[in-house]
């Protein structure tokens, strides 16, 4: 059952990531990101399938089966959640003339997703996300980094921030403003 636990953890994390990326793709009007959402949707589908098989193999008694049914339900719900999120990203398939105002729908004051550009001379340049411990220190989580033409989605702790990076972050308004000032070099991280 250890395997199922890991798969369930993975599906939960990915289903949360896909929601953030789906909204971000709309806010940034990014078809690249929408493609990543589509890829994640496929991975989540695959995870659900694996969980289903492993869980079925584990049932010995009716009571066990009932408990295991709960696991299937959680996995399935996470998958449904991911599908719903993916549909948000698929709005980008509409012709551009049909959706000129789409990004602005979410660029409201109480929205949690923001974009931060890292300027040369910022104190976060050349430091890893792990060293900075960004989420615990500032209340914002880096959900993706645009570097040149490429993307790093759901970056790991060992990813080093470079000048010119564009960070897609999710979190508090204050945390975003702080990180933005630091990224501009107007304030020190430490």
């Amino acid at each position, binding site marked *: 059952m250890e395997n199922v636990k890991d798969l369930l953890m993975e599906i939960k994390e990915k289903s949360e990531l896909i929601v953030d990326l789906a909204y971000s793709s709309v806010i940034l009007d990014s078809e690249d990101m929408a493609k990543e959402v589509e890829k994640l949707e496929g991975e989540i589908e695959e995870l659900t399938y694996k969980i289903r098989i492993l869980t079925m193999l584990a049932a010995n008694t009716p009571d066990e089966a009932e408990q295991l049914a709960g696991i299937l339900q959680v996995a399935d*719900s996470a998958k449904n959640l991911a599908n*719903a999120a993916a549909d948000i990203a698929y*709005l980008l398939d509409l012709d551009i003339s049909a959706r000129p105002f789409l990004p602005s729908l979410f660029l409201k004051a109480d929205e949690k997703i923001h974009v931060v550009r890292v300027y040369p001379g910022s104190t976060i340049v050349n430091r890893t996300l792990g060293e900075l411990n960004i989420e615990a220190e500032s209340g914002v989580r880096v959900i993706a980094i645009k570097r040149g033409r490429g993307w790093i989605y759901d970056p790991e702790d060992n990813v080093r921030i470079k000048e010119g990076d564009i960070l897609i972050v999710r*979190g*508090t308004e*204050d945390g975003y403003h702080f990180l933005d000032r630091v990224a501009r070099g107007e304030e020190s991280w430490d």
Partner: protein
Amino acid sequence: MLIEMKNISELMVDLAYSALIFNNKEIAEEVKYLEEKIDERYYQLQEEAIKQAIAQGNPYGALILIRLATSIEAISDSAVQIADVVLREIEPHPIIRESIKESDVTITRAKVKKESILSNKTLGELNLASETGMWVIAIKRGHAWIFGPTENTKILPGDILLAKGPIEGVKHFIRLCKGLDKKI
């Protein structure tokens, strides 16, 4: 209204996982209650979007609003489905709890001691989410619950806080509640 729907749906997902991790039926019931709120707003939004489309003679704005709202509504349905596992007769399988607990964004709870610096301050004053990464998603006060507290919600000694955030933030959060860490 769309942002409001989005915020409620996010709270629902957080609460649904909280219900599972703490095997708590009250939280699960709240998720179901919030689903009703989502539905109300969903119907209202559809109606307004269509009126707008007719007035403007252009369907696309309404189409996008309705499709977004439909996705958000489906997300909140998934949250209800997750919470529903707790409302069964049988206790959820322990690996469900472990998988939530060990994921990179986890959920924890802690009781606020009298000597804690969180006592008698509002969430806005404390700025807890920005300073620690931990978001208070619900508060249990005596027998009552406060779900989705706002900046103006004051933390009282004896409150049990449910918070969501990075695993790295959990220890500090618990020490703050216990009054062991005096600085946020």
